[in-house]
């Protein structure tokens, strides 16, 4: 039986690790390559890198980070942030990432999903979605709206519609981040996660709000997620990946326990 995946997320800026809380007040916590290797050894099933670098120089540094990570971990990893076109995707994939994720760019230029899927296969293309709860309306029937540029800009796009549309366009996976829950450590947005996961036929990674193992158990059962993204709860060593997985298995949620 397929295991549920536990995926630490590493935010990188100018080649260094940061951890954003509600997208502000980032604190440097070290080298991304060392962190990736440590999580690999501790039983991460996959790793997500999110590059928040703004400059072109910084992006070259990121490609170098990807290359070094690929030499040191032998599990899949994805890179998102700053991917503007298929050429950017190609650089990241050739440097050794399994998957690339697109978020704001996919909203403004949806054909990047199709082009990426055609060039590298759907399994390489992750749609990152940042979502905020809003009032249900004719325009936003699900009551969840897509926001972009780091949660600052409302798009008027319904999250459920966009998830289905992205699947049609060729996305192979969705990384679903609740802006409301992100950084709170009060638990994932379970309704949102279940809504999206039940209405697409591609895997959904839940993101935003993980504070303790119970939250992860909830989102993988009630929330119907296929995988859970975690950050602070392991970055600050409050919990270990092995400890989280042990907890999940004790609660009848199958995860990979031998690595």
């Amino acid at each position, binding site marked *: *039986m397929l*295991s549920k995946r536990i995926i630490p997320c590493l935010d990188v800026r100018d080649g260094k690790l940061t951890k954003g809380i509600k997208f502000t007040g980032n604190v440097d916590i070290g080298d991304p390559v060392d962190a990736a290797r440590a999580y690999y050894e501790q039983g991460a*099933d996959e790793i997500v890198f999110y590059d928040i670098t703004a400059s072109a120089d910084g992006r070259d540094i990121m490609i170098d980070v990807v290359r070094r990570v690929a030499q040191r971990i*032998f599990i899949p990893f994805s890179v998102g942030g700053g991917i503007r076109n298929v050429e950017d995707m190609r650089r990241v994939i*050739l440097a*050794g990432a399994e998957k690339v994720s697109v978020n704001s760019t996919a909203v403004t230029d949806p054909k990047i999903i199709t082009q990426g899927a055609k060039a590298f*296969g759907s399994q390489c293309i992750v749609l990152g979605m940042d979502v905020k709860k809003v009032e249900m309306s004719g325009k936003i029937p699900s009551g969840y709206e897509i926001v972009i540029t780091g949660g600052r800009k409302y798009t008027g796009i319904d999250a459920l519609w966009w998830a289905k549309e992205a699947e049609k366009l060729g996305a192979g996976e969705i990384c679903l981040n609740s802006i409301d829950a992100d950084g709170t450590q009060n638990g994932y947005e379970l309704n949102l996660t279940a809504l999206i996961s039940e209405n697409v*036929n591609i895997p959904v990674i839940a993101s935003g709000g993980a504070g303790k193992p119970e939250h992860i158990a909830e989102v993988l059962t009630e929330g119907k997620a296929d*995988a859970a993204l975690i950050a602070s709860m392991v970055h600050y060593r409050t919990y270990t990946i092995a400890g989280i997985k042990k907890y999940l298995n004790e609660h009848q949620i199958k995860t990979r326990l*031998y690595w």
Partner: protein
Amino acid sequence: MIAIIDYKAGNLTSVARALQSIDESFVITDDIKKLDAATHIIFPGVGAAGEAMANLRRKELDSWLTGWIKTGKPLMGICLGTQIILDYSEENETKCIGLVRGKTKRFPDDLNIGCRKLKIPHMGWNNVSFNRDHPVFNDVPKEAEFYFVHSYYPAPEDDSLVLGVTDYGISFCSVLAANNLVAMQFHPEKSGRPGLQILRNFCRWRGNA
């Protein structure tokens, strides 16, 4: 020397990096002279069967593989490389190399566990139940899991070639082995320490299972 067949099907460098990490030397090539000189062949692949077969035929690597398998020297198939060693793939309705009788099938669209619909592709970590021992899987514990990402799976005609099976709504052949051939649906190069152990074993294997 290990040779990785280069037929422009996906990212071969991940297999190369995994071999580097276990200190094995290798070449990545489509040059038949270099392939002939190899001791072991790794046949990886990511992508679609139709295009992969077209690329192989253009370079006559399909017939080269048919010759290689008769030498008795080890051949490892990975993912798409495993699927297209059978006779036929339902993906793009493709005639394949035919080193093994049988075909590659698509997962049915209505796979369920209980009332839960299973997603396709089958992506993530899953177990393999082995039917017998095999030198390439020495020192790989039975609780190990492997990284899969695929919508099609190999279905050899001869059940005795099935070395391992995996459960995803249906039980499918995830590892097959015949004489000097061992082929797996999952990615050993992305399956952590157990995956690296498989690659290490393969590099030491003489092709006599």
